């Protein structure tokens, strides 16, 4: 019997949609120009890039000139924080949340080493920042506020419009990392008063290796990569044509299927959450019940460690992750879960399932069949039994 494969790690990366692959193919062998070349091949590819730019801009309510293509969301976030800091040396305070992705967090920490004051806003048990605390923190020294839109680990969706309005009214720049939320929550940079926004192609069924930074017209920002002056001078380096065409196509597909896809995913997500909480004792959902990304499920299991469940599930064909996949090389418990008030053992016992375009009901049923067995098995190995679960707290 063929072993069932259930991929539930769409938040780590998505497969490339077949329509996207088809759109990209001509840009490997047929249209091979460098977008900076003046000959026919160069013109052909730069046209394709501008069509993609236009489409992506429209999708988030921006103008095409405000979209900068980069190599990854990590690069976009680095550019947003360091580029804005570099161009506005008169202000030295940056506010982020305690639940940012490492690329925002570590960029901010890097700036702290260069004389910046960095404030990490605390969050409540659902992972939401306190609006009043943010308001108090913004002062005349403040340059930039950067708050993640949809959290990559626990799926919490922040009230970006409210934060954007506050920042605009107080005259500070507002950046949001929308890598996880793009396609799942409607984004309008005008209405939401966003100055800078990061989004990534490989989280929306596009190829890896391309992302955008939206930079509102008028925002003062310097490049962090210097060279031939591509992307309006903000990001030099030969433009990744096929990937950009792919990201444009991925957005086009989202325009068509995004809405119904999210409704379908919410139903499957809630089915998985309810099923796990019902069949497995001593576990709970991390993050809010409703105000969360349509595809995110994050559960903590008492008395077992996340990685051991992950690998047991993997051997049964189910692929998921512990916290953020990027931190699999890091032994420390997730800073996101700790910020939400979990203690270290509770954070160590967490697992993230993220659903996507090709997840179906049979997949969810299969997980609900094998997960209880796995948790039971690992708890049997554990020296901690239900009665001494307070140990270590």
């Amino acid at each position, binding site marked *: 019997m063929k072993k069932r494969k259930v991929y539930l790690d769409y938040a780590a990366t998505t497969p490339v949609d077949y329509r996207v692959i088809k759109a990209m193919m001509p840009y490997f062998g047929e249209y091979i120009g460098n977008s900076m070349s003046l000959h026919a091949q160069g013109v052909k590819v730069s046209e394709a890039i501008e069509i993609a730019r236009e489409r992506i801009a429209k999708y988030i309510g921006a103008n095409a000139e405000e979209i900068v293509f980069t190599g990854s969301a990590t690069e976009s976030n680095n550019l947003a924080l360091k580029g804005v800091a570099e161009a506005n040396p008169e202000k030295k305070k940056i506010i982020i949340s305690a639940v940012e992705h490492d690329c925002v967090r570590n960029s901010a920490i890097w700036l702290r080493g260069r004389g910046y004051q960095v404030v990490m806003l605390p969050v409540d048990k659902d992972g939401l920042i306190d609006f009043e605390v943010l308001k108090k923190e913004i002062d005349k020294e403040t340059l930039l506020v950067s708050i993640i839109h949809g959290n990559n680990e626990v799926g919490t969706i922040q009230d970006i419009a409210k934060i954007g309005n506050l920042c605009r009214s107080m005259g500070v720049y507002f950046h949001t990392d929308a890598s996880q939320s793009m396609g799942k929550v409607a984004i309008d940079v005008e209405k939401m008063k966003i100055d800078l926004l990061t989004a990534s192609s490989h989280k929306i069924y596009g190829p890896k290796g391309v992302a955008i930074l939206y930079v509102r017209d008028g925002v003062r920002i310097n490049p962090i990569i210097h060279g031939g002056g591509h992307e309006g001078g903000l990001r030099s380096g030969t433009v990744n044509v096929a990937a950009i065409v792919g990201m444009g196509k991925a957005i086009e597909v989202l325009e068509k299927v995004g809405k119904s896809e999210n409704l379908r995913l919410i139903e499957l997500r809630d089915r998985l959450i309810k099923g796990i909480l019902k069949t497995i004792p001593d576990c709970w959902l991390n993050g809010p019940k409703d105000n969360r990304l349509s595809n995110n499920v994050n559960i903590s299991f008492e*008395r*077992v*460690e996340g*990685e*051991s469940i992950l*690998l*047991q599930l993997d*051997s049964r064909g189910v692929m998921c992750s512990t916290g953020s996949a990027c931190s*699999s*090389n*890091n*032994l420390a*418990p997730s800073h996101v879960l700790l910020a939400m008030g979990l*203690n*270290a*053992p509770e954070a*160590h016992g967490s697992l993230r399932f993220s659903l996507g375009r090709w997840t179906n009901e049979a997949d969810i049923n299969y997980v609900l069949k094998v997960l209880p067995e796995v948790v039971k098995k690992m708890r*049997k*190995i*554990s*020296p*901690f039994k239900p009665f001494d679960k307070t*140990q*270590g*707290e």
Partner: protein
Amino acid sequence: MMRQQFSYSKKVLKHFKSPHNLGKIKDPDGVGEVGNLACGDVMKLYIKVVENKISDVKFETYGCAAAIATSSITTDLVKGKTIEEALAMTNKEVIDSLDGLPPIKIHCSLLSVDALNEAIYDYLKKREKPVPEYLEKRHMRTITLQKMEELEHKI
């Protein structure tokens, strides 16, 4: 550039999926417990000693795949050994027997050797047998480390 190895050897996964000597021993002659929940690894090792030889050994572990696999292989390696032989075991033996560990998981192998030493320490103390000086030192180091880690994680 440093190469980063995240994946486990086949042997680690084999021991992780079907660990040997799993469980408790009723009336053990020695028990060693090391690690703490904050770090994500806790090992409990039980030994039975007959005529100065480890006749039976079992374990319970909370932790990652490496923690479970190192516990399992340690019990395999130590079964049938004399107390002296068991005390001479190093974490390198554990790592080699598993065909290697990712660098970030090396500490798991130290933990399993510590658990074994603690179990032997417990056995010697209970039987009022002389404890070698180096074992006394290791014991002190193990419990000090544990306390420090607990303080660090403020739990």
